[in-house]
C-alpha cells in the first residue's frame, strides 16, 4: 500500500449520522458525492434507496441510518453519499455530514461493546480522536476528544441473504 503512513496506522474518514460519529477506512472510500435522488428499485428492502449513476456504473445507494436500524436520516444541504468498496462491489452510503479525515493508530482501537444498533457486529471498534479546531460542538465530543465508531464494511455488504431476512 502506498498510503504514505506508517505500519500500524490507518486513515479513517469520520462522519456524523444522527447523534453519533462514525468512521470508515479511508482505503475503502472511492469518493464523496453530493446527495442526488437515486432511481428507486422495486422489491428491495427499504434501506436500499435505489441506484445512481457513478460515471457509467450503476451503484446502489444505501440509507446507512436505516441499515443500522435507526430512523431514516433526513436529507439536508450537507447530506452526502460516501461511495465505498464493499468486497469488490461499490455502494453509496447516505450520511448526514462528513467530518474529517484522521490518522489513528491500530493500537488505539478498542473493541466495541455491544452497542444497541440492531447488529452489534457492524461496529469493528471504538477509537478516540482529537477534535479539530472549532469542532468542539460536534455531537459525540467529550472534552477535546470525540468517540468514533469504526464501521466494519465487510459486515455492511449488501447480499441477497440479508435481504431475505429483512
Amino acid at each position, binding site marked *: 500500500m502506498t498510503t504514505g503512513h506508517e505500519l500500524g496506522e490507518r486513515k479513517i474518514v469520520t462522519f456524523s449520522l444522527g447523534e453519533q460519529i462514525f468512521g470508515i477506512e479511508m482505503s475503502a472510500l472511492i469518493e464523496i458525492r453530493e446527495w442526488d435522488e437515486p432511481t428507486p428499485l422495486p422489491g428491495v428492502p427499504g434501506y436500499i434507496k435505489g441506484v445512481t449513476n457513478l460515471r457509467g456504473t*450503476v451503484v446502489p445507494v444505501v440509507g446507512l441510518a436505516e441499515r443500522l436500524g435507526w430512523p431514516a436520516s433526513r436529507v439536508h444541504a450537507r447530506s452526502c453519499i460516501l461511495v465505498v468498496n464493499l468486497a469488490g462491489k461499490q455502494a453509496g452510503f447516505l450520511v448526514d455530514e462528513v467530518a474529517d479525515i484522521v490518522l489513528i493508530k491500530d493500537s488505539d482501537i478498542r473493541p466495541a461493546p455491544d452497542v444497541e444498533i440492531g447488529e452489534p457486529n457492524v461496529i469493528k471498534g471504538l477509537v478516540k480522536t482529537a477534535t479539530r479546531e472549532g469542532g468542539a460542538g460536534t455531537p459525540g465530543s467529550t472534552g477535546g476528544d470525540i468517540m468514533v465508531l469504526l464501521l466494519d464494511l465487510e459486515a455492511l455488504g449488501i447480499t441477497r441473504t440479508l435481504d431475505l431476512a429483512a
Partner: protein
Amino acid sequence: MSDELDDIQAIFFEECTEGLATAEAGLSAMDAGDVSPGTIAGVFRAVHSIKGGAGAFGHTALTAFAHRFENLMDEVRADRIKPTPGVTRVMLAAFDVLSDHVAAAQGTAPVPADAQMLDALEAILKAGGAPDAAPAPAPPEPEPDPFGFEPVAVAIDPLEELDPFGFEPVGVALEELDASPDAGEPRPWTVTFVPSDAALAHGGEPVLIVRELELLGGEVTAVDLSGLPPLRDLEPEHCYFGWTLSVPGSVEESAISDCFDFLAPSSIVEIAREAAPVADLPPVEWATAAPPPPEPPVAPPPPPAVATTPEPQALVAAAPVPVADAPALRAAPAASAEPAAQTIRVDLVKLDMLLNLVGELVIRGSILADRLSPKDQERVELPQLSRLTREIQDTVMSLRAQPIKQAFSRVPRMLRDLSVETGKQVVLETSGETTEVDKGVIEKIGDPLTHMIRNAVDHGIESVDRRLAAGKPAEGTIRLSAEQKGARIFVRVSDDGGGIDRARVRGKAVEKGIIPADAVLTDEEIDQLICAPGFSTAETISNISGRGVGMDVVRSNVEALGGRVEISSVPGKGTTFTMVLPLTLAILEGMIVRLSGQRFVLPLANVIETVQPEPGQVKPTTTTGEVIELRGSYLPVRRLNDTFGLPANDGQRPEDSLVIIVESESAGHVGLMVDTIDDRREVVIKSLDQNLYPIRGLGGATILGDGSIALILDIEALVAPASRLQKGLAA
C-alpha cells in the same frame, strides 16, 4: 522479482486450464470412439505443455505425473498402444488425477495420491496396451524382453515413428561406444542460448532458464558479450547476452529442451553433444542415414535413446508459441482438433472496457440524433455514423463470443464423479457445443449448469434397480445441448429419469409455506415451484445437490442475464431444464415508458403493438384481474404501477393510459398498462448484480442521455404465471 515470477506462473496456470480443457475434450472424444491422430495429438500436446511449464516452475509432483501420462500418450500417438476403451478409460482417470495435480500446484487442493494411477499407466506402457495388466513395480532399467519389446525406451523415444523396429540408430550406439566405451557415460551437452532482444519485454527472464539448467547440473562455460553496445546505447530493457553452458551428458535432452519451453520469439537455442562429430548434423538426416544397428546398444537404453536424438517434440518446445504445432493440426480431421489460428491473448478487462466504450458511443449517438432537427437527422453523415457504430459494436461482440463448449467441458468429469458418488450409471450426450455465446454468458452459466446436471443425476435419474424395474436401460442418459434461435440461445439439460414427482413437490411447497394448502396449480406451475426461493432444503436434497446452489439461485442467475429457465417434465420419462439466454448482454432496443413519473425501458423485441384503450375496452374480470378486448379476443392486462408497488394514481382510468401488448414465451400475449411512452432508442444494459444483485422483474438498468438511470423491464419475469405465486414483486 518474485512478483514477476508469480505473474508468469499465473499465465502458466491459465495455460494449464486451457490445456486441461483441450485434453479433456480430446479424451472424451476418444472415449466416444474418435481415435483419429489429430485428437490423440491434441491430448498429447496439452499434456506435454503442462509438463513443460510445471517443470519450469518446479512443480515436481505434477511434472512427474504429467511425464508418465505423456509417455503413454506418446505411445498411443505412435500407434504402438491401441486406444482401446480400456486404455481410454485409464487415461480419463489419469486425466482426473492430472487435474488434481494442477489444482495442487495452484495450492487450491491437496496433492492427490497418484501412486495407483502411476502404476496403472506404467502397466499399460509395459504391457503395450492391456488395460487390466497387474501393476508391476518399475525396474530402474528395463531388460529387453524375449519378444523384442523395449517398453520404456520406446515410450520416450519418438524416433520410433521413423523406425518401426524399435532399434536404436547405429550413430547413437557407435557414438556412445566411442565416447565412453566402458561407463556408457555420454558426452556432456553444449547448450548455446541467446535470448532475443525482446526477451525481457516478453517476460522471459533468461536468468531463470540459466538457473534451471544449472539445477540440472549445467555450468556456464562462456558468456557472449559481443552484442553488448557501448553504455550510451544500452537499452536497459534489451537483452544482449548469450550463454554457453555445459550440461552433464547423463541429462536427457528433453529435460534440457523443456527448460526452453517458455521462450521469447526469435531466441536462439542450440543443444549438441560436445565434440561429437555428428552433433552438427541435422537430426532428421542423421536418423534416416543411419543404417540399422546389428544389435541393441550397450548403453542403458533410456537416456541415450532420447539424449542423442533431438526429438521432434523438443524442436517444437524450443519454438516460442503453440502455433508451431499448426502443421500437425492442419493434418488432423477438422472435427477432432481446434484449428490453431493466429491468436493473441487479450486481457478480458480490456475487452470489457472496449464494450463499455462502444456502449457509450451508442448512447452519445442517440443523444446526438435527438439534438438534431429531423431534417439534419436524415443527412447522410448520421446514418453512416450509426452504421459504423453498429459495425464496431458487432465486431466487439464477436470478439467476446466463445464456443459454449467451454462451459460444457467440465461436465464429463463431474458426471464421472457423480456416478461414483451415487452409484448411478449415466452417459452424457452433447450437441451444439460450437454454438457461440458471449464470454460473460459462458462465465455465468457455469454454476447454473453444474447445478442442473447435479440435479438431473441426483433427482432425475433413478437408481439402477428402479430403472430396470421400469423397463429402462440400466444406464441413464443426460443430454446437454445448445442451439441458437434468433437472438436467443437455448441450453438444455434433459434426463431420461423419473420426471418430477409433482405430488411430492406440491406437498413440500405447502409444508414450506410457499403456497397455501388449497392452491390450485397446473402441472407447469408445480414444476416451477422447484425454482421458488426456499424450496431447496437439506431434507429434500442429498449432499450432492445440496452443496451446490438452489434452483432458485439458478433461476435468478439466468434471469440476471436476461434469460429464463423453462422446465418440462413427463412422469416416468424424464425432465428437461432449458436455459433461454440472450445472445448479447450489451445493447438492447427499447421503448422508454413512464410509470408514476419514473422511466423504465421495455425491450422492443417483446412489443407487438400499443393500444390507446377506448372507454370500456379494459374490463375487470376478478377483483385484481383485468382484460383488454382487442379485435374480438381478450388479453390479460397488468398494471405495471401495481406490479412494482409504485404510487398508482388511484382510479386512473385505462383510457388515460397506454396498453402495450407484449409477447412472452410463457404467457403468450399480455397487455402491460403504462402511463406514457417517451421514446424509443437503443440502450446499453448495465447489470444490477455488478454492484447489487439481480432483482426479479428487472433485466438490468441503463443510463439515459441525461445521466439518469432507467430500469429495464424483464417481460418474461413480469408476465410469467409463476410470478403470481410469489408474494408480489414489491417488498
